């Protein structure tokens, strides 16, 4: 089994070097998606199933889609078939990295094993059975709240940048519309299942949100202008519902004297409500990141000043 892991590690290192080498951007993007999928495999090999799900859905899936969208926009503004200038040869960097990794590994392995936070001991009091969800939504809820705020900031930032001047032109054929009808319902059902499953097994708001975002990206690509391109009343509440629910929960528990401590017996309900709100927000915000700009009619003529 170790041989397979060594092979997997070698392939991932090779893909990483290949991604960073060379001039053509499209090659780098495609190899980066392969890198993300292989990394998801490695998370699974390490036993971190939550991370495998997240890496595949967010690391390879959504980031790959964002890279492709940005590449398409770049290609339409500048003839960026190959980037100007010569790419520096990576071999010295690879050697330095190998040396540093060897030294680092020896140092880390020589550390005497330290204890770890007592997650299993307090799991019962957290309200959920799955340790990772317990850490994310109960023990370190303040981190996750700020993380949802980071996503909201990203969504607002993309709107602030203005309208995408020339949205993609290729209209979708009948086959793509047909695929939509098959895949989108399945993705939605899978997302709800992942969200519910997060309380007792790997899964949770982020993976569910990424799946919903994948469905949204498909719709965004098939029906031009997609849901993100026309200003709609549901967009702003949907983008902030995750942060609003979480902040409200923080304020209410702060009023009850111990901030971010979910009430006894009700903690599972609170956690699932927060996760549901977060999943919706994450999906809409990742779709906004993919759309790459503010809704078309919303921006005034001058992108500089009064953008909504």
């Amino acid at each position, binding site marked *: 089994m170790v041989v397979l892991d060594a092979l997997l590690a070698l392939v991932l290192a090779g893909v990483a070097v290949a991604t960073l080498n060379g001039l053509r951007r499209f090659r780098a993007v495609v190899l980066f998606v392969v890198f993300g999928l292989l990394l998801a495999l490695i998370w699974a090999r390490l036993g971190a199933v939550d991370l495998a799900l997240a890496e595949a859905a967010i690391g390879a899936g959504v980031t790959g889609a964002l890279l492709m969208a940005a590449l398409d926009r770049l290609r339409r503004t500048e003839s960026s078939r190959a980037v100007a200038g010569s790419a520096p040869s990576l071999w010295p960097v690879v050697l330095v990295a190998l040396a540093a990794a060897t030294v680092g590994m020896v*140092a*880390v392995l020589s*550390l005497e094993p*330290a*204890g*770890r*936070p*007592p*997650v299993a001991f*307090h799991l019962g009091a957290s309200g959920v059975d799955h340790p990772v969800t317990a850490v994310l939504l*109960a*023990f*370190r*809820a*303040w*981190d996750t*709240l*700020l*993380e949802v*705020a*980071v996503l*909201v*900031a*990203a969504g*607002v*930032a993309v*709107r*602030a*940048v*203005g309208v995408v001047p020339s949205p993609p032109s290729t209209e979708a054929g009948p086959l793509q519309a047909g695929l939509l009808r098959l895949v989108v319902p399945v993705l939605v059902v899978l997302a709800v299942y992942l969200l519910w499953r997060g309380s007792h097994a790997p899964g949770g708001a982020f993976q569910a949100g990424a799946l919903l975002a994948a469905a949204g990206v498909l719709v965004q690509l098939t029906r031009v202008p997609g849901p993100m391109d026309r200003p709609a009343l549901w967009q*702003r*509440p949907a*983008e*902030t519902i995750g*942060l*609003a629910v979480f*902040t409200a929960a*923080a*304020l209410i528990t*702060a009023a009850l*004297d*111990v*901030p*971010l*401590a*979910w009430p006894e017996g009700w903690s599972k309900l609170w956690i699932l409500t927060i996760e549901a709100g977060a999943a919706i927000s994450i999906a809409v915000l990742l779709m906004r990141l993919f759309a790459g700009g503010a809704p078309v009619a919303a921006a005034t003529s001058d*992108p*500089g*000043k*009064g*953008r*909504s």
Partner: protein
Amino acid sequence: MNPLLPALVAALLPLVGSILVWLVPSWSRALAVVTAAGVLVAALGVVNRVALDGAAMMTLGGWPETLGIGIAVDGVGALFLLASAVVGLAATAYGAGYFPARHPFWTLWLLLWAALNAVFITADAFNAYVALELAGLTAAVLVTLGGERDAMAAGLRYLLVSLVGATLYLAGVAVAYTATGTLSLNALMADSPPMMAGVLALGGLALKAALFPLHGWLPPAHARAPGPVSAILSALVVKAALYLAWRWLEVAPVAAEAFILLGIGAVIWGSLQALRVGRLKAIIAWSTVAQMGYLAVGLALAVEGAAGAAMGVAWLALTHALAKGAAFLGAASVVRAAGHDRWPLAAAHLRNRPVLVLAFGLAAASLAGLPPSGGFVAKWYLLDAAMGAERWLLAAVIAGGGLLSAAYLYRILHPALDPRPGAEASHPVPPVLEWSALGLALLVTAFGVVVPWARDLVGVAA
């Protein structure tokens, strides 16, 4: 009512404000000002609480310290929070006169404010990472709000630099967590992690605090940011990274010497560049690079236990935030009036605005460390600490640096006090813009006189 409630409210209130502003954009200005007032009350509550019954710490969610995220407030944290509240209020008031209601500035600024206050109250290494990322992202996008090309380029470069810094910091936290199994900064101080953790984390923080020679991204970003954003960036955002560097220097004190060297380099290089550049906001941005040098030197002295250095650094951070905020708000008003900030050409638009000239004068006095301003008191404590620790080179740099900063600030004041008549037609400047700049300048002068209450406050931490 647990003692840390006002601290948590200081971080949560801007979040609530940002959500409301995003949902109801037409009331943005009113909501933002109300949020700013709330944050000021919360910050004063924290200062009062720390002054009365000393530093306090608690773990969120009622979990044990080894598991949950700790938030803590001591004398130094209270002063940084106060600076964030006061400069934030001035910047919000200024923004109300500068930006229209339906502008993305409001949501991004309130999210940035929440991140800054979260950094000032956190006692957890990874929580600081997430807060720093939120601050870095929102600050970089605020720089690009101008919409024109070079602001966009400066913002993108700032975002990538902040991502590199955050990854370095994360690597340091990962090494510390692997070695000690804990993420709480107090526990890290106790069983000190391997030196590599401190080096990586402090490297990332030095990059985000634009400490010389990693300062390259700061002048273009701060000079090209629109209106109050440059004041927010220079006065508060770089302070958040510096505050965390203080915490981590206590975890890895061996890096203090490096901070002294970088600090000296920053003071000299920053001041020289400020003498050379030809634009008003660039002068003030380079002055930030120089003043960060002072703070780094003071930090190293404080960590090495020089008497009074902690008070000096905390007071310098507070007064620098106020003075730099006043200077940049004044500069933004000049840019609003003149339409450009080429210097000394734009000075013609400054001459016929007494309020702005007074604001610039008082701010310059504090930045240069002249009595009676707050800057003088801070530099006095630092000089005293350097003398006490027999660090004559540092004492010379602190004193000499004051001279250098007086030189580049003279470049601003001299054309402003020129007796020739003011400029031709200049664009109207709403009074709230000028008065918010003057308000900060008056406050920094007041802080030169009203000092005693702060000494025992900072004493609480040391």
